[in-house]
């Protein structure tokens, strides 16, 4: 398998990291869990190349085995038909007591810290060193936040509403506008929020403008596709100045949007908030009417159906697709296919946008087709839209598993550099990168598979809630399992491919 750098996001960064390590001098040494700090570029690439690839198991067999495991998991779950026992597992929880005072204090503290970090990203992005592995903005945004923090949203819980610096800024600006300048007549209204019964007001909104209901969360779907496109075709992965500019633009748009539309902005438009909220659906720590509770991983997704709004299902499908797309454009196959097209004079950026949209269309089409078959097999009057919406949470563990496989190695590789630069963002020392051991490739494959196995369980549980009896629920799952088997094999194939930087951009 692969010589794949684990994340595509700061694609050049890993290599630069390796070069920087060479400059820093060799620091060989043992590391817990057999991870070593090594300072040569070839060792870095070679070690990543070890990945799954025992020399004897060919890639096709690895990929096929993944498909077999998912199919076998389905067969195995069909043996679990005691609905009450399934609910016992899915509804199990431990309520974690959280005093309101402590929670408020923690939220205030995290707001100050997150706004300070945003400021630091902007400053170091604009005036910091241009070396990828010494620039705080690049390391923090891609390795720390997009790879590392995102993992916590599904492995621990969605903490973004408390950490979001733009919410803090928008809330602060509104407070200034209302309290000091007398702008806006509406006081901070106390109302019950639909999801948790927590008494809160819209602490962002200054106007009474609303986003049309019929748009649903489509603005967030478009935003997510646009963000990933920007990340793939623009230099923000390696150029800190460009990154700072994009972060600044994003900040202005988000704060303005929050002040005009209030909470709805974060709920229906801001793609970043929606990504974390979606990933948070499978996290073990959940927030509900009783405060915080600890759940078995993935089980929270069996209880929370997506709201009945346009674009909800599409957002989850888009999340799955953009993670795949991100991997797909850095495979050798993509380079081989794109080269003749680009040489024929077709602008590469157009090919990228076409494939992004076409692939999203294909994913949506396949999901819709599977839902049709599910409807037929379950012999039910439940509408196709409704089946799509009910079963969509089962896609989230798949996206999460793929995300870990994609980013865990990348995060670990750059974590020492991030730590060193975070201590001295303006005068960073020479940094080193971690070299991961050979068995790490197997861990990545296991993450993809684990995501699918959890997804099979979630789909199984949801089908039991959706259709009466046992047999209809089991039979209905066959189309989605067939799709999952193919998707597992595709994503395992992408993971096992050597990394090639997306060409022509």
């Amino acid at each position, binding site marked *: 398998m692969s010589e794949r750098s684990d994340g595509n996001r700061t694609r050049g960064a890993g290599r630069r990291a390796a070069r920087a390590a060479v400059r820093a001098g060799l620091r060989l040494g043992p590391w817990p869990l057999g991870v070593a700090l090594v300072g040569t570029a070839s060792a870095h690439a070679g070690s990543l190349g070890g990945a799954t690839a025992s020399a*004897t*198991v*060919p890639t096709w*067999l690895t990929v*096929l*085995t993944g498909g*077999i495991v998912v*199919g*076998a998991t389905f*067969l*195995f779950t*069909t*043996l679990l*038909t005691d*609905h009450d026992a399934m*609910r016992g597992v899915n*509804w199990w929880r431990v309520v974690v007591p959280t005093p309101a005072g402590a929670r408020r204090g923690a939220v205030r503290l995290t707001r100050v810290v997150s706004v300070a970090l945003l400021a630091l990203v902007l400053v170091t992005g604009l005036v910091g060193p241009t070396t990828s592995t010494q620039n705080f903005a690049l390391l923090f945004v891609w390795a720390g936040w997009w790879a590392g923090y995102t993992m916590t949203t599904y492995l621990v819980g969605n903490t973004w509403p408390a950490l979001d610096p733009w919410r803090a800024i928008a809330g602060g600006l509104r407070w200034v506008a209302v309290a000091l300048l007398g702008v806006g007549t509406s006081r901070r209204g106390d109302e019950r929020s639909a999801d948790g019964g927590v008494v809160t007001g819209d602490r962002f909104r200054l106007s009474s403008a609303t986003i049309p209901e019929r748009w649903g969360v489509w603005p967030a779907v478009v935003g997510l596709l646009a963000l990933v496109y920007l990340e793939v075709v623009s230099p923000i992965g390696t150029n800190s100045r460009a990154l700072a500019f994009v972060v600044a633009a994003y900040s202005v748009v988000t704060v303005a949007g929050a002040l005009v539309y209030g909470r709805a902005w974060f709920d229906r438009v801001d793609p970043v908030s929606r990504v974390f909220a979606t990933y948070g659906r499978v996290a073990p720590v959940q927030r509900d009417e009783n405060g915080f509770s600890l759940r078995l991983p993935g089980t929270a997704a069996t*209880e929370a*159906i997506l709201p*009945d709004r346009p674009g909800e299902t599409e957002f989850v499908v888009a999340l799955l697709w953009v993670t795949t797309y991100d991997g797909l454009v850095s495979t050798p196959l993509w380079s081989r296919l794109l080269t003749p097209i680009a040489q024929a004079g077709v602008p590469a950026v157009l090919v990228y946008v076409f494939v992004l949209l076409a692939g999203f269309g294909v994913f949506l089409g396949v999901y819709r087709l599977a839902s049709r078959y599910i409807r037929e097999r379950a*012999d*039910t*009057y*439940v*509408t196709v*839209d*409704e*089946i799509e919406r*009910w079963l969509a949470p089962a896609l989230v563990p798949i996206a999460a598993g793929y995300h870990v496989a994609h980013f865990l190695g990348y995060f670990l590789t750059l974590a020492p550099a991030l730590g060193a630069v975070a201590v001295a963002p303006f005068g960073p020392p020479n940094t080193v990168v971690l070299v991961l051991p050979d068995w790490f490739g197997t861990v990545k494959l296991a993450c993809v598979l684990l995501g699918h196995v959890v997804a099979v369980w979630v789909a199984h549980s949801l089908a039991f*809630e*959706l*259709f*009466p*009896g*046992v*047999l*209809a629920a*089991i039979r209905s799952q066959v189309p989605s399992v067939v799709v999952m088997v193919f998707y597992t094999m595709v994503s395992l194939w992408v993971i096992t491919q050597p990394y090639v930087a997306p060409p022509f951009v």
Partner: protein
Amino acid sequence: MNRKLPDPLTRVPTDEEPTATCPHCERPFRSVHARDLHVGERHESDATGTESERYERALETERDDLWFFHAKAVVGLGVTYAASVILYMVVLGGFL
């Protein structure tokens, strides 16, 4: 029964008359069997004696069909497992 999820939206095609409807919540079903199961699962406390009996009978049918289905699933699992082992033996043994 503790219910946490809402009932799903249903739509009956205009040219079709639902085979059965839940007397408690009006939800339409394509088969009497599914309706009987639904009544037993979702309206256990409100179900009449006849409805409870019908539910028991529907469960009995499910059990028979399920036994056959599970037999197939177990055979499927066994065949998959055996085929995988043989495949690995062939590939790792260098016959391929």
